[in-house]
Each structure stands twice: as C-alpha cells, then as structure tokens.
C-alpha cells in the first residue's frame, strides 16, 4: 500500500493551513478597523444648514458661549435656538437660500434637525458645567473648531480616553481666561500644578469612580 500523502499533497495542506491562519488574522484586523471607524475621527458631518464653525469662530471670532449658552451652567452645552441664529441672520445674508430652512423653522415653529457630532451612550452622564468650571478648555475635547468648515469629531470620546484625563487632570487644565480660546497653548507644568490646586480637583479615586460618569 502506498503513502497517503505525496510531497505535493503535503504542499497543498501546508498552503491550506496558512490560508486559514491568514483568514483569522484578517478577521481580527477587520474588527479593529470597524471599532476605529465608530469613532468617526475627523469626518466632517453634513448638516441641514452647512454651518461653518471656521467662519463663525475663526473669522468672525464669535465666543462659543454666544450660541452654546448653557455650557457653563448645565450638563448640555446647548444648541442655539432658531431665534439665536436669527439674531444676526434676520439682517445678515437673510436672503441666502442656504438660510431658507432657518426662516422656515421660525415660521413653522419646527426645530432644525441638526446632525449630532459628539454622541455619548445614554448611560454616560457628562457635565459641561463642571468641566468648564475646572478649567478644561473647549479645544481640549472638541479640537480646533475654528478650523472646521463642517464640525467633526476631534477626539475618540472612548472611556479609555476620558480616563486618561481623569487620572491626570492637571496636565489638561487652562486658566479660565483662556478656556474659550482656540489657540491658547497648554501652560507649562509648574503652572499646571497651581491650576490644579486652584480648581480644587477631587481625589484621583473620586475622579475614576464608576459613579462619576455612570448612574
């Protein structure tokens, strides 16, 4: 009786095994890639009205708080009501077709359906007010909004990323005067210590408690 496997058969088997391994690796890579894709980093998001932060913040130099009114007091920074937009646009570019939707909203009382850029799962309770009060500048999490024609997500907003800051907040603080500035650099380490003390940060343990963000 002759051997079951010829030399060539063996080669085939080897290749088959290799292919199998390759498939596994590919699957893992695919999974990782998809996970990354969820973060949508740097993908401009189309809006019903192509609102340009670059123009309003960068060129016009409008303060964040002019539209995001509750950012210092509430959990949500707040989206500007139609009325706020019309505060200027009842005069400026009022006949621009781009702004038709704005006027329609005003007339019908139907809110404008903006596309969300920064989304957290419903079990995460983020509070803008506290972060602002402690000296976490807008740019820290939202990036250079003044350079975004259409807003996109600048940071992953993953738990790991939040923790990085909650474990060592001092390195991410700015003086309150610069919180809303887009280009203010992070202060040098020695000042960071002072800022942290001034902000009366909670203990590291408190800041990494589950109950700090989840309820």
């Amino acid at each position: 009786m002759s051997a079951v496997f010829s030399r060539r058969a063996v080669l085939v088997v080897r290749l088959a095994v290799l292919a199998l391994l390759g498939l596994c690796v590919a699957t893992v890579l695919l999974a990782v890639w998809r996970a990354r894709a969820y973060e949508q980093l740097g993908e401009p998001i189309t809006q019903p009205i192509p609102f340009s932060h670059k123009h309003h913040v960068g060129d016009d130099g409008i303060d964040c708080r002019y539209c995001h009114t509750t950012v210092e007091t509430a959990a949500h920074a707040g989206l500007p009501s139609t009325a706020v937009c019309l505060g200027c646009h009842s005069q400026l570019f009022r006949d621009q077709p781009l702004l038709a939707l704005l006027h329609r909203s005003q007339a019908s009382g139907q809110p404008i359906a903006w596309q969300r850029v920064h989304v957290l799962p419903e079990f995460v309770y983020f509070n803008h007010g506290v972060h602002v009060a402690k000296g976490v500048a807008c740019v820290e999490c939202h990036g250079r909004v003044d350079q975004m024609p259409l807003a996109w997500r600048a940071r992953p907003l993953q738990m790991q990323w939040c923790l990085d800051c909650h474990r060592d907040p001092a390195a991410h603080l700015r003086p309150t005067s610069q919180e809303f500035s887009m280009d203010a650099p992070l202060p040098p380490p020695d000042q960071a210590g002072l800022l942290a003390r001034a902000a009366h940060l909670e203990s590291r343990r408190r800041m990494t408690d589950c109950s700090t963000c989840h309820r």
Partner: protein
Amino acid sequence: MSDPRWALMAEYETAEALVAAAQAAHDAGFRAIEAYAPYHVEGLAEAVGFGRSRLPAVVLAGGFVGGLGGYFLQWYAAVRSYPIEVGARPLHSWPMFVPVTFEMTVLFAAFAAFFGALVANGLPSLAHPIFDAPDFDLATRNRFFLCLRTDDPRFDEARAGAVLDSTRPLRRAEVAR
C-alpha cells in the same frame, strides 16, 4: 550524499526480535537506526541509542511562565491598571489570585508537554519515505520494522545487509528516498 535509497529495512514479527535487531545494529556501530513498533516497546528507544528526553524540563518551564504570567496579569489589572475598591478587600488581595495562577500554570505546562512532544518528534510530517516501504501499513498493526539509514556516515552496504540478515527478519527491503 546521493544515494537513491533512504534506508535498508527489515521486518519482524515480535517486539523481542526488533529490540534484539536494533541492539545488534547499534553494537555493529550503526547510529542512524530507526525502529518502528505498533505500540510502545520497553527498551526499544534505548536500543536505538535514544538518551533521556528533555521534555520534562520544557514542561517545567511552561508551568513557570504560565504561573508567573497569570499572577502578574491579575496584579497588574487589579492594582496598577484600574484600582477599584471591591467589597473593602485590598487591591492586592493575593489569596484570591491563587486559583487563576494555578490554572494558568497547568495550562501552559500542558501546552508545553503536548507541543513539545510534537515538535521534538518532528510532527506533523505527513509525507515520509518509510510510508512507501512494503508492508509498512502493518507497522501500526502487528509488525515491527528496523531501518538502517543510508545517510549514516558509518553506513556500508555490505555490513548493513549482513547485520540485518543476521537478525533473521521476515523479509528485507530497500526504502527509496
């Protein structure tokens, strides 16, 4: 070397015969001896000049790696990476880390034993010249085979034949490369 043959082969009916033959070949100075049996025959490995296996050492090492790795993993996760208070137990509550450490030790030791043996045996090797030898399919049933490989520096056609004949095999054959 370019000998077209891989080895000279002799076939036997009993384990004793095989052991004796192997012993004889070894005494005759042959070193590249291979003996095939349908079950684990005591003394055969010694007869073909196989010394002590290094497998136990490998397994021990595997156990250490697993154990230490397992314990470190727990310590790192519970104390370093994300310390969280659980039931007022200390972060480094070592007694609670023992079971996992133990299991990891056994697991890695087992891996070492299994794959160590495979690798040492050069398995898997689906194709091998001996498979084409006549009658060899009986090697996993009831026959015993002895091979004197031609790549043995001491290999000598005549002497090899003589030694094998002297062991009165059922038959003799040549195994092609």
